[in-house]
């Protein structure tokens, strides 16, 4: 009995000591003045980076009475760097807007994000401001889940002027529905050590599609039985290759993936077929790798088992964490027929129906959304997450463009294209299936592509039917 008591007391003391060690960032003092009014001030200590050094800045702000504080909820999926970056932005936002408190819900695994949103909506709980993939905008708008972007956040002119052109492409029904902090583009990663081992110049990655074919073959290493030891270039349709095909290769071969109004699939043209044939040849004829080997193409690159890899800027973070010693470089996507293109995409933030129900919450949500999408916020984001600022002023930053890793992604921003998705996962699936049909069942590339186009057109027709 005595022993148990001893343990409980020591635990309590230990807890107290721990609590005392916590850095005190916010101090609230209440001063009762003669008129009996309660005046509250808050001392905010912020960590600010000045000239590369972290400096603590303390200031005093007025805090409204507890009853006037509006609480809003913000949701995003869990990804360490994103959570950190957003916590930082929320801290700054709350310091500047003491009447708003933001609940940050990021305890949602990436794969479950849509499920959780879908489960929260019928119960009318959930986010006031939500982060969503831009490709989901049409579906969310269709359901009436998002409200049109209020003019107080940005007007159409402001978006056209200040944001990367791909953001303009998410206009729907004559309105904007969401606005991003950061955007991503695709570029080509190459493993310098493997280039050297294959007798190639480690500083000369492929710059056009012919060189890509040539180098991919030189870089692939086989054992005696013909098994691949090192992949020159594995194509990964479930990864980024379906984007590479639609928005890059089709355009480079002189075609267009979709009609101007996004209602018609056009990649099943002779040009599109040429592009598709180019893409599948790496696996079907040249045997330079496969997404089936080494778990997938991304893992293969991280493990140093593939020499060339096409991926987005978001991969930089996972390389830094999972393969810090990888000796790699990044360059803009290879060109052909003098046409440069890359796929642009972004996670964007919208205001939900729930926020719009209460004017005070709507106002707080508007201020919050505006705050997290400024050029300054974008600059913080690029530091923490490796995604590029969505605002052009921040993305055109000279330091950013000169950065050997981030620079090529930033350089792609002016010519990046974003696909208009109505059902992103199904639209991706049709390209994956076309690719699989060619490599696994010897289907004719053009016929497989026609079938994909037919299936995708059905999805588009369904979406546009009631508009």
């Amino acid at each position, binding site marked *: 009995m005595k022993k148990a008591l001893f343990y409980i007391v020591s635990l309590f003391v230990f807890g107290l000591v721990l609590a005392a060690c916590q850095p005190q960032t916010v101090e609230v003092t209440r001063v009762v003045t003669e008129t009996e009014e309660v005046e509250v001030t808050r001392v905010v200590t912020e960590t600010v980076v000045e000239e590369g050094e972290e400096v603590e800045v303390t200031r005093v702000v007025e805090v409204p009475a507890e009853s006037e504080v509006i609480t809003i909820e913000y949701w995003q999926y869990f990804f360490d760097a994103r959570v950190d970056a957003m916590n930082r932005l929320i801290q700054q936002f709350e310091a500047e807007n003491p009447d708003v408190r933001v609940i940050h819900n990021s305890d949602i695994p990436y794969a479950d994000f849509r499920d959780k949103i*879908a489960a929260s909506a*019928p119960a009318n709980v959930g986010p006031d401001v939500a982060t969503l993939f831009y490709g989901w905008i049409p579906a969310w708008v269709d*359901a009436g889940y998002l409200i049109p972007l209020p003019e107080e956040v940005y007007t159409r002119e402001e978006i056209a002027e200040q944001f990367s052109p791909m953001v303009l492409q998410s206009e729907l029904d004559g309105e904007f529905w969401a606005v991003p902090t950061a955007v991503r583009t695709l570029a080509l990663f190459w493993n310098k050590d493997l280039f050297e081992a294959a007798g190639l110049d480690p500083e000369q990655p492929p710059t056009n599609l012919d060189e890509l074919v040539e180098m991919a073959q030189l870089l692939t290493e086989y054992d005696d039985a013909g098994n691949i030891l090192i992949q020159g270039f594995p194509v990964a349709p479930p990864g980024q290759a379906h984007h590479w095909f639609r928005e890059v290769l089709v355009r480079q071969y002189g075609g267009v993936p979709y009609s101007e109004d996004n209602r018609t699939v056009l990649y099943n043209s002779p040009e599109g077929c040429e592009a598709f044939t180019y893409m599948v040849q790496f696996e079907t004829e040249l045997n330079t790798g496969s997404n089936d080997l080494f778990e997938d193409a991304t893992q293969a690159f991280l493990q140093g088992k593939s020499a060339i890899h096409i991926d987005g800027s978001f991969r930089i973070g996972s390389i830094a964490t999972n393969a810090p010693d990888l000796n790699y470089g990044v360059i803009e996507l290879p060109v052909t027929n003098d046409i440069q293109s890359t796929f642009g995409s972004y996670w964007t933030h919208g205001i939900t129906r729930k926020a719009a129900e209460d004017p005070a919450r709507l106002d707080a949500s508007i201020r919050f959304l505006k705050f997290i999408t400024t050029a300054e916020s974008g600059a913080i984001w690029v530091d923490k997450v490796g995604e590029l600022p969505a605002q052009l002023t921040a993305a055109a930053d000279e330091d950013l463009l000169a950065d050997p890793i981030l620079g090529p992604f930033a350089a792609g921003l002016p010519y990046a294209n974003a696909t208009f998705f109505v059902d992103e*996962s*199904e639209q991706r699936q049709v390209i994956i299936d076309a690719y699989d049909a060619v490599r*696994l069942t010897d289907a004719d590339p053009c016929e497989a592509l026609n079938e994909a186009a037919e299936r995708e057109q059905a999805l588009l027709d369904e979406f546009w039917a009631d508009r």
Partner: protein
Amino acid sequence: MISLSIRQRQVMWAYIFLFVPMLFFIFIRIMPTLSAFNISLHDWNPLAEEQTFVGLANYQQLWEDLQDSNSVTRKAFVNTFQYVIVGMPLQLVIALGIALLLNEIKRFSTFFRAVYFLPFVTSTVAISWVWRWLYQPQYGFFNVVLSFFGLSQQPFLKHPDQALYSITAVVVWQGLGFAIIIFLAGLKQIPQIYYEAAIIDGATRLQKFRYVTIPLLNTTLVYLAVLQTISFLRMFDYVINMTTQGDGGPLGSTTTVTLRVYREAFSSFDMGYASALTVALFAIILVITIIQLRLFSTID
């Protein structure tokens, strides 16, 4: 106050205790099931505020999809039946074989039983991932073994011709332990006198098995067949974990009805169609179960 006898009070308390799980069943099982019927009659987007009633439109869509030989929905139904047709008998035959052997041995029988039962108590997700790695092309365990014996490597999960069978093998393997234990229990219940009588009549081993064991195992067989059929019809977790990004591929060759339900409901936000699929699956399970119960229990 009415005075109750001890017996009456016991009964009353039994009902009170039964009431609690009943509440659970009503609100967690039965109501959602009924609500799925309701949802299937709507164009139901979980994100939307209002859901429009569309009558049988979702079922009509389902009917059309089932007739379209290229549709994923049709593939899902065909695959699901294939899992049942291949997996269920295979599992019963292997489990019965092992149970008969285990019934013979005295030494280490507990050890063997534990070994066979172990996969059943392991998480399906863990098992799926381990097998996914075992099946890997080139460096997966099976392919290394094949190469070692000079045999050609196989794509297993990566080819539409092999993927479904590769997954079925895992399901059969994991479910063996459970079926074996049930069979063993059934075997132990068969009175020895029947076998003794059969021996006196001069029955061979095979005849003993055919005329004594099988008929007296009938109830066990029916129970297992129904249970395994239902579990194969509801297959989801193996497929979502063993295929690339859980897409039921390659080329939809492993996708199942429940996986389609999930994708339609939570990727395409079409709860109405997804519910129509669940209702169809419910009807199929019901019919198959009734047929099996009738068929097997009349063989006596």
